[in-house]
């Protein structure tokens, strides 16, 4: 087995951690590969986690304390958290209040809340206001598939504009799960991505991260969307062997973030993707933390 070809700028303590982990990888493999991936230096920002309960089954880490423990154990230093409740609940204001409260009560600053806004609900503008002014959230998370609107909907354009004006980072969730295995009574169509680039271009100041989009968006279509504005993607649903390296052959490094989609997905999936791909010196650090840190710091 080959050791990780990636190299990092390390202080002595970090170097020893990685060296010990890498020695484990070379001896046999597997959880040591995981440990090596988790032990990389300079933090790990998971931009795609959710709190509360997935509507269709209990998950091993759907308790906030358990999720925090899982994230910490895997080296996560910050997690951008939405709420599963934001998918179907109509009382979005209490969803966001609970989310903010959970993030305060657990993790000692690990969890950063991203409130839900549904632009098809009456007076949704006040939900946006509360996210920014009451809960002091740095961003919001949108679920167009579950909330039933298209990307050429004027309400969506207005929401993006108001979010940009408030300096809120917008997380747009393309899908939550593989549509082939959805519950028969909860089949949610992935929104058509084609109109999205136009609305991004028409929204100055917008910072947009699209979650779970790499399952269906590749090549030129992905590039066009990234070039439409300040648009980012994360790796939770990226697939294919050596997927991260393949993605970076065609995608600007500074637009790729780390995301696990935990607790709906096993957290280890995203972490091991960084291990599986041979990456250059600067790539792991950019994906693990630097890109996300820069993006969050850009709040106008």
């Amino acid at each position, binding site marked *: 087995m080959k050791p990780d070809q990636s190299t990092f700028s390390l202080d002595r303590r970090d170097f020893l951690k990685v060296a010990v982990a890498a020695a484990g990888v070379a001896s046999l493999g*597997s959880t040591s590969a995981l440990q090596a991936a988790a032990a990389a230096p300079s933090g790990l920002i998971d931009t795609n986690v959710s709190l509360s309960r997935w509507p269709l089954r209990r998950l091993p*880490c759907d308790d906030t304390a358990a999720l925090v423990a899982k994230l910490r154990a895997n080296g996560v230093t910050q997690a951008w958290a939405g709420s599963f409740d934001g998918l179907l609940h109509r009382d979005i204001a209490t969803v966001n209040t609970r989310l903010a409260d959970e993030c305060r009560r657990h993790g000692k600053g690990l969890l950063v809340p991203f409130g839900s806004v549904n632009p098809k609900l009456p007076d949704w503008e006040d939900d946006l206001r509360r996210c920014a002014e009451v809960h002091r959230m740095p961003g919001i998370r949108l679920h167009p598939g579950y909330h039933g609107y298209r990307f050429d909907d004027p309400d969506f354009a207005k929401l993006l504009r108001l979010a940009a004006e408030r300096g809120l980072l917008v997380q747009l969730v393309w899908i939550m799960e593989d549509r082939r*295995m959805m519950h028969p009574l909860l089949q949610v169509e992935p929104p058509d991505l084609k109109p999205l680039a136009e609305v991004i271009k028409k929204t100055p100041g917008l910072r947009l991260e699209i979650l779970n989009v790499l399952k269906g968006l590749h090549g030129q279509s992905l590039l066009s969307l990234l070039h439409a504005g300040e648009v980012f993607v994360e790796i939770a649903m990226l697939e*294919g*062997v*050596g997927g991260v390296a393949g993605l970076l052959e065609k995608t600007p490094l500074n637009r790729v973030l780390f995301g696990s989609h935990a607790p709906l997905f096993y957290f280890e999936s995203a972490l091991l993707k960084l291990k599986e791909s041979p990456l250059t010196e600067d790539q792991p650090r950019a994906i693990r933390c630097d890109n996300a840190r820069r993006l969050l710091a850009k709040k106008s």
Partner: protein
Amino acid sequence: MNYEIWDVHTHLAGVPGTTPEERLAKLLQYADRVGIARLCVMMGLKWNYDPTPEFMRKSNDEALQAVRKFPDRAFGFVYVNPKHTQASLDELNRCVRDGPMVGVKLWCALHCNDPLLDPIVARAAELKAIVAQHCWIKITGNLPGESTPMDMAELAARHPKATFSCIHTGGDWERGIRAIRPHPNVYADINGGDPTAGFTGMAVRELGAERVLYGSDAGYRSFASQLAKVHGAEIPDTAKRLIFAGNTKRLLRPILNEKGIKV
């Protein structure tokens, strides 16, 4: 904790390289990075849901070419189409009885509860080869010949002495696990779907860790997302050892012994 890992389900498709050998070499490079010792490889460079006898032979020739280059790292599964029964039996004999392959791969040509599978399964059982059948339950609609775990349960009931791998555990694993549960000769191959938390835990709870196999479906899938189903599962370490390699080794040992391969 270190684990020995055998991947029961990989492909040459979706991997960089122009020849089968190049692609398997590349696949092994990625496997090395995440600690996988051995791969089971099935099908050639191009895929066909309903292959002709000629396509089957070419596909199997390519898989043979690849595994012969890495005999200490890879095992082959012969790809057959039960609609062409005699041609499939001929391929079984050529690639398994007379060649290095250790299992049978069935995909989407025909629902696997069809009686046309019976002679193929019977021959595979004689040769001690694992029968791996693609299974999926799609709410969006299966392909015309695409099997479900319920189809597999019917087939397994007719062949209690054969060993079956229910590939993908039906995708919709909450139903797939239940469908195969009564049939102890059916193993849940957890490869291919998203790394949805809870999958492996339910499989272990309902089937026992002895009936769960780690596979990836690489290169279409990453090794990473599929390894995570075991690494991330809240199951005992002993169960992880069985799923990662112990069960596959136990199932392959009889045929490997016959071929004089020690593992």
